[in-house]
């Protein structure tokens, strides 16, 4: 692009506690361009954009915005200059209305007693122009995640932002909402706005971006035109090596023939219902997972996934329904007894209920093995055996650590997750409930987690994979169903016949009732 860039960032450096997060990054955005900033977690994408938006000050480097040098600015100045950012965690006030959120911090006509009805009309006009459907009078608390994101974008457009920075905007959206978002961004582009898209999803970048800048370990690896880029090429740039294909097809098929295990499912739920608390419950959820099968449950977070996982683990007691492990009912059994029956659980929130962050690796490893006579005898812990066991797990699962006595909170997210897998999977469980097992992990660690799950599948475990990441489910699951507002759709075989359009609609709740009737 020879046209003078709208934005030019030159040689940006920023360190946190001596660790460089941005190591001399240069970056351009042209007018009316959608520029993707691609990279793994910790590659420095968000730091770079926070510097541009004025949340952090760069240690060195220069920013030229529409021909003028920017520096020492805060978010307020950035907005005034026409730079707007939608953060990963939305910056909305849930108790205020959409309109109040959009005009927050502005001195509207009549300040401090603005004419709300007039502002609402202005907002509706603007939303029609960009195809952003919002109701100005609605309280933000009542909106879905996708709607909240539209409010965030409206906030920027209302402030006349010329450059929109979006930090991982699709992480929280259903496929349908994602398409909607990119339609809106295309409209913005058509009206002369530029967009910076921070993401680690290669497929989106290829479909929607004009140019792509890849960051790795705080440095720029490449900037290329999206037209000539390939998925394989981009992933190699991102992680610095070639990615092994995580596809289920390459893993050996279940060594246990299904007939050998009989008709007995490894894990079966029959009409599990849970009375809704705060709108989240389960309505007659039924499924079965055969040995050597990965059964996927798709859906946007907060549709009963947590409740379902906790029912399986025994933390919650369903109001009705039956739960069978290997054909035997497990009613009345607590988590510990269920684990004795061969259940392993990988939590979606490793900091909350996966690990004790202040404990060292050996102690966290022990948490799952308190019944194991190798480690605990007569109620006393054999510390040496624990250290040995943890040491073995560290080696087997490639946990990067200084040793089994290091505190778990000092590990990276990926290594913490590896430790959980080591603890949960090393005993060869018959049933695995994996709830968002790759959440917040980078590609390398995700690949590792997926390989372990496929290994267990090959070894004959029944794996239930609950995830909001469609790519993960499509790559791993043999069959999958969609959970929406506590109801589970019928299961679909994950092969060529899978209708993605239908899955996307189900995730948004459309067609759920008919599906349930048809089944």
């Amino acid at each position, binding site marked *: 692009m020879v046209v003078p860039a709208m934005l030019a960032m030159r040689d940006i450096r920023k360190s946190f506690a001596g660790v460089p997060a941005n190591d001399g990054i240069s970056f351009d955005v042209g007018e009316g361009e959608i520029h993707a900033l691609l990279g793994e977690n910790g590659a420095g994408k968000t730091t770079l954009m926070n510097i541009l938006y004025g*949340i952090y000050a760069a240690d060195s480097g220069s920013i030229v915005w529409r021909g003028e040098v920017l520096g020492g600015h*805060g*978010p*307020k100045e950035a*907005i*005034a200059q026409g730079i707007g*950012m939608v*953060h990963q*965690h*939305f*910056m*909305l*006030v*849930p*108790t*205020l209305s959409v309109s*109040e*959120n959009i*005009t*927050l*911090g502005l*001195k*509207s006509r009549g*300040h*401090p*007693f*603005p004419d709300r009805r007039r502002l609402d009309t202005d907002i509706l006009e603007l939303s029609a122009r960009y195809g952003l459907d919002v109701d100005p009078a609605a309280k933000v608390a009542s909106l879905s995640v996708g709607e909240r994101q539209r409010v965030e974008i409206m*906030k920027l457009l209302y402030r006349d932002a010329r450059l929109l920075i979006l930090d991982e905007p699709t992480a929280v959206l259903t496929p349908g909402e994602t398409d909607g978002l990119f339609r809106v961004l295309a409209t913005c582009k058509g009206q002369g706005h530029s967009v910076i898209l921070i993401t680690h999803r290669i497929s989106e970048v290829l479909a929607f971006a004009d140019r792509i800048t890849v960051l790795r370990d705080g440095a720029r690896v490449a900037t290329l035109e999206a037209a000539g880029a390939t998925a394989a090429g981009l992933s190699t740039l991102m992680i610095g090596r070639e990615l092994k294909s995580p596809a289920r097809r390459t893993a050996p098929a279940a060594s246990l023939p299904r007939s050998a295990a009989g008709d007995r499912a490894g894990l079966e739920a029959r009409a599990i219902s849970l009375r809704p608390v705060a709108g989240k419950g389960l309505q007659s959820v039924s499924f079965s997972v055969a040995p050597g099968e990965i059964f996927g449950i798709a859906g946007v977070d907060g549709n009963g996934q947590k409740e379902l996982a906790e029912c399986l683990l025994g933390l919650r007691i369903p109001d009705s329904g039956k739960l069978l492990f290997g054909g035997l009912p497990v009613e009345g059994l607590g988590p510990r007894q269920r684990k004795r029956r061969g259940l392993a659980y990988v939590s979606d929130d490793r900091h909350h209920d996966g690990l004790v962050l202040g404990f060292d690796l050996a102690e966290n490893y022990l948490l799952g093995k308190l019944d194991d006579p190798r480690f605990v005898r007569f109620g006393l812990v054999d510390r040496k055996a624990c250290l040995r066991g943890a040491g073995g797990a560290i080696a087997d699962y490639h946990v990067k650590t200084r040793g089994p006595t290091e505190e778990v909170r000092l590990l990276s997210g990926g290594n913490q997750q590896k430790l959980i897998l080591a603890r949960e999977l090393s005993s060869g469980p018959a049933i695995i409930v994996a709830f968002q097992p790759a959440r917040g992990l980078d590609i390398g660690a995700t690949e590792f987690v997926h390989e372990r799950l496929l290994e267990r599948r090959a070894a004959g475990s029944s794996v239930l994979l609950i995830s909001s990441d469609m790519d993960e489910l499509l790559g791993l699951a043999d069959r999958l169903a969609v959970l929406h507002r506590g109801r589970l759709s019928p299961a679909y075989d994950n092969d060529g016949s899978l209708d993605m359009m239908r899955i996307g609609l189900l995730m948004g709740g459309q067609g759920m009732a008919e599906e349930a009737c048809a089944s």
Partner: protein
Amino acid sequence: MSDTQGFAALLGELSTFAAASVRMAAPLLIAGLGEAISETAGILNIGLEGIMLSGAFAAFIVAWATQNVWLGIMAGIAGGMLASLLHALLGVGRRADQTITGLALNFLASGLTSYFFLMAFGRTTSLPECPVLPAVEIPLLSSIPFFGPVLFSQNPFVYFAFVATGLVWLLFRRSEWGVILHAAGENPHAADSAGLDVIRTRYVAAAANGCFGGLAGASITLGTLGFFMENVTSGKGYIALVVVILGRRQPFGVALAALLLGAADALQFRMQTGNSGIPSQVFIMFPYLMTVIVLLFSIGKTRDPASLGIPFDRGRR
């Protein structure tokens, strides 16, 4: 014949009682409105008792020295603001724990005012007196039967309390400033990223709280008593905190709650003078007992601002 006389007497009793309830409610309402502003902006200031006590003392000492009630009121406002801004300096500016700071403020105000009072007057048996703001009968309205004496023959603090309720409602519900206060208390990071100054907003809210709380304190010494003594506010600041929770930080809710607890206080006074033979301490307990009961039934029904009591720090999310 005797029936109508009896009815008139009962109505008179009721009207006196209602008037006393309204008078007792005024300091709770004024202080409660201030605290509602503060909490809406995200500052939990349980030092309200200290603010009121500072206001009560400053108002008294200046009114006593100058023999001018209006100067006393101004001093009361200043005293309350000083106490509240001290809390804000620590709990907003230095990000200290707001609950502990509020607690400390209560003890500090209690000790300091008693000490200054002792310094100024020594140990006296006769309490030094200051001028009192007289009740103002509002022409025409005060002659309405029943409502006249209850609502329109009160001291100016009572009138202020009711006008202020409407003004705070306007602030919360109709003005952009109210939106900004809500944003600062609910999601300060959102307010910050919208270019608002969260810290300044909270200081302003704290100043408003001090202004109202100081005035509430002044209303005790200059509105009804005409003198000062140790801990003259006698826990009204704490009751005002209950009023805020009960009224869900909404001005009219706070007003209703203040009237309810004001009535409990008035009832207590009447029963004390009723010669029932029951020790007076039992009756003094009554408003506090009422407070506990009321709190018991309101548990779980209020929703606090999401960032209430959490100091704002831009770097922390």
